[in-house]
């Protein structure tokens, strides 16, 4: 039991490190507007693709390196250290393009895979809808056949990056007369189509990281269909299988920042760090945060041994999102009345905890709510039965609807 690279891994790491040192852009990304970050990220992605460091596990013929999952992990670790601009391509390369590769013809693959790998075109995933969140198969956006085309009308929501994406994969209802899972079909679409309108969602945290996407008579060719008509749910499962790889754990302040904050905040004769109730909580969060980090090491170990990581990888988001919310709350408590101040000029850590207390509420929902993730652990990891389904044999059009 150790944390060392194998000789092959060490060789790849030093090769990657040398390449990164020679090629990574030396820019400070802090505070840069999104448009500028996007430009930097595209240039960086192109450079990586040229050196075959983009999509390391993909076959060489598709622009990859033909490498191993552990090499991808190692490269990402090293890339993280140099602070290169990234994140814009995760959904496209992690979810959309793999779906395209599994379900489209050679011409379509030929047309789209290369530009996506090189960062020239960015993809988004259009599944969630206002009345179809955890129950995505209950979606209502419809596509109606018209000669050789399909015409799409409806609305998607929570689409990350829709405002800068060029293409998307969209799950729509093509048959409302059969039960919900059976009437869905998947297409790829051009996000620049005049019938597509993207509106940012104003989040409770203040920012706008996601969008609403409206479709008004968007015409797509039947050749843009991914998989058979009515088989969209099976296609979507292939996409979603990759989701938990693309949606990472929580980022934000962690226990070292909370410890520093408590140390520098006066309480009684001394600092808040001397408060016994605080210390017990801090210990719990340390144990959890380290437990998560070490659990990732176990998954990486499986990759390193050429095995598939075990189900332990499924606990990451549920633990980290809740911990971030709890730690941020505690930081406010430590600051007492001063805790309400969220002005980065005045609040400690440039208001990092104040931002996290708002952001973590969303993190517990995005990419699978706490409740859905617990169902997934219970059903897929522990093998417990699924819920009783009252909608299984009901035609979609006859299903009761609420908000």
């Amino acid at each position, binding site marked *: 039991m150790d944390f*060392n690279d194998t000789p092959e891994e060490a060789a790849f790491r030093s090769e990657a490190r040398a390449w990164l040192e020679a090629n990574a852009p030396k820019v400070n990304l802090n505070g840069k507007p999104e448009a500028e970050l996007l430009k930097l990220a595209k240039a960086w992605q192109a450079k990586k693709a040229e050196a075959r460091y983009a999509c390391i596990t993909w076959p060489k013929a598709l622009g990859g390196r033909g490498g191993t999952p552990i090499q991808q992990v190692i490269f990402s670790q090293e890339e993280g250290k140099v602070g290169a601009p990234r994140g814009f391509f995760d959904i496209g390369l992690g979810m959309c393009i793999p779906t395209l590769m599994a379900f489209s013809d050679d011409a379509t693959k030929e047309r789209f895979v290369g530009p996506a790998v090189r960062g020239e075109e960015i993809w988004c995933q259009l599944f969630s809808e206002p009345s179809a969140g955890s129950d995505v198969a209950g979606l209502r956006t419809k596509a109606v056949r018209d000669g050789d085309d399909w015409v799409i009308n409806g609305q998607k929501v929570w689409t990350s990056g829709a405002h800068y994406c060029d293409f998307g994969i969209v799950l729509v209802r093509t048959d409302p007369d059969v039960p919900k899972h059976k009437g869905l079909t998947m297409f790829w679409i051009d996000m620049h189509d005049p019938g597509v309108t993207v509106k940012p969602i104003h989040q409770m945290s203040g920012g706008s990281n996601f969008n609403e996407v409206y479709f008004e008579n968007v015409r797509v060719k039947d050749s843009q269909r991914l998989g058979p008509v009515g088989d969209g749910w099976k296609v979507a499962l292939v996409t979603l299988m990759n989701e938990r790889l693309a949606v990472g754990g929580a980022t934000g302040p962690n226990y070292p920042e909370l410890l520093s904050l408590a140390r520098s905040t006066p309480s009684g004769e001394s600092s808040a*760090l001397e408060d016994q109730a605080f210390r017990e909580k801090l210990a719990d969060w340390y144990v959890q945060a380290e437990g998560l980090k070490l659990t990732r090491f176990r998954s990486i*170990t499986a990759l390193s041994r050429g095995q598939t990581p075990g189900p332990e990888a499924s606990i990451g988001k549920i633990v980290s999102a809740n911990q971030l919310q709890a730690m941020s709350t505690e930081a406010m408590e430590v600051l007492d009345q001063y805790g309400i101040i969220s002005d980065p000029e005045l609040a400690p850590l440039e208001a990092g905890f104040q931002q996290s207390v708002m952001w973590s509420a969303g993190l517990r929902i995005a990419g699978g709510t706490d*409740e859905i993730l617990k169902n997934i652990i219970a059903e897929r*990891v522990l093998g417990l039965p699924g819920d009783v389904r009252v909608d299984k044999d009901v035609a979609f059009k006859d299903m009761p609807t609420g908000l």
Partner: protein
Amino acid sequence: MNFDYSDDQKFLKSEARKFLDARATAKVNRAVLDDPTKSYDADLWTAVAEMGWLGTAIPEEHGGLGLGHVELCAIAEELGRVVAPIPFASTVYFFAEAVMLAGSEAQKADLLPKVASGELIGCFATSEGPGAVAADRLSCTVDGGKLSGVKIPVTDGDIAHKAVVLASEGGKPSLFIVDLSGVTRETLKTLDPSRSAAKLTFSGAPAERLGGVGEGIALMEAVFDRAAVLIAFEQVGGADKCLEMAKEYALGRYAFGRTIAGYQAIKHKLADIYVKNELARSNAYYGAWALNTSASELPIAASAARIAGSEAFWFAAKENVQTHGGMGFTWAVDCHLYYRRAKQLGLVAGAARSWKERLVSQLERRNAA
């Protein structure tokens, strides 16, 4: 990255499971639990000794197998799974570790082979009453090589041949090796009668110092660190077994026309157990790495393993009872064997409360450095 059991260690573990599934059934635990005159299962103890497990981490020159601590952790996990009613922890995690850590060459050569062969049951005597052990409250004293005072509770104190005892000599706390044959011992009524405990009354018992003068508290903490990691593996093993029991029962139990395993109230409870168990396992592995490599991170790693292990086992044990409903509260169903053991293991190397304070003190130092 190589942060898991190796293939050889996995093989050892699966062999241990086969052996214990056959030899350490719930019936074996209950035979001790139900019989006030029985402190442990002597047959299982002999069998475990014959397997060589007692000497897993003891060097070959001292009669052990000379494997590493990770191998011992693998065995600990399996012993925890079956709530084995034997003085394994007292003898191996505490007594032998204390001797390996602080013993002179002569002490090691004398004691370790006897531990490895199973002829010596050892124990570790630190507590003297309610509350955590503290240097300035020690009432056990050694004067002219003779120990006097009371230790309570001492796990396996009623069956052990020798004890490592924390006592003060000339006002300085030190560890001592004491032969228990002439010592007054009284078996105590405890939460987990499948692991016995005693009150030891020393009245001038010959005591031989283990380690340096005045090093008692530091050595005790170092022994606790080592034992905490090993016990964390017993806790992880027990917690995983509780999850399996809860799952199996929930799948077979029907209410309101269907299996209760399909209700989200049960599914989410079991998912919560799973999450805690995995975090505890990862923290335990880190402790195993630190213990096996004598890393300077051991005190922090042991604290985290102890806290996560204690909480995961307790959570799994209590929610296992809950999942079983009324049946879980009966003597006949095995849930309480784990409920008892979770508390026993959660306290035997010091309460999580103390370990949290210890952990944060270490983090403060690291954060300041």
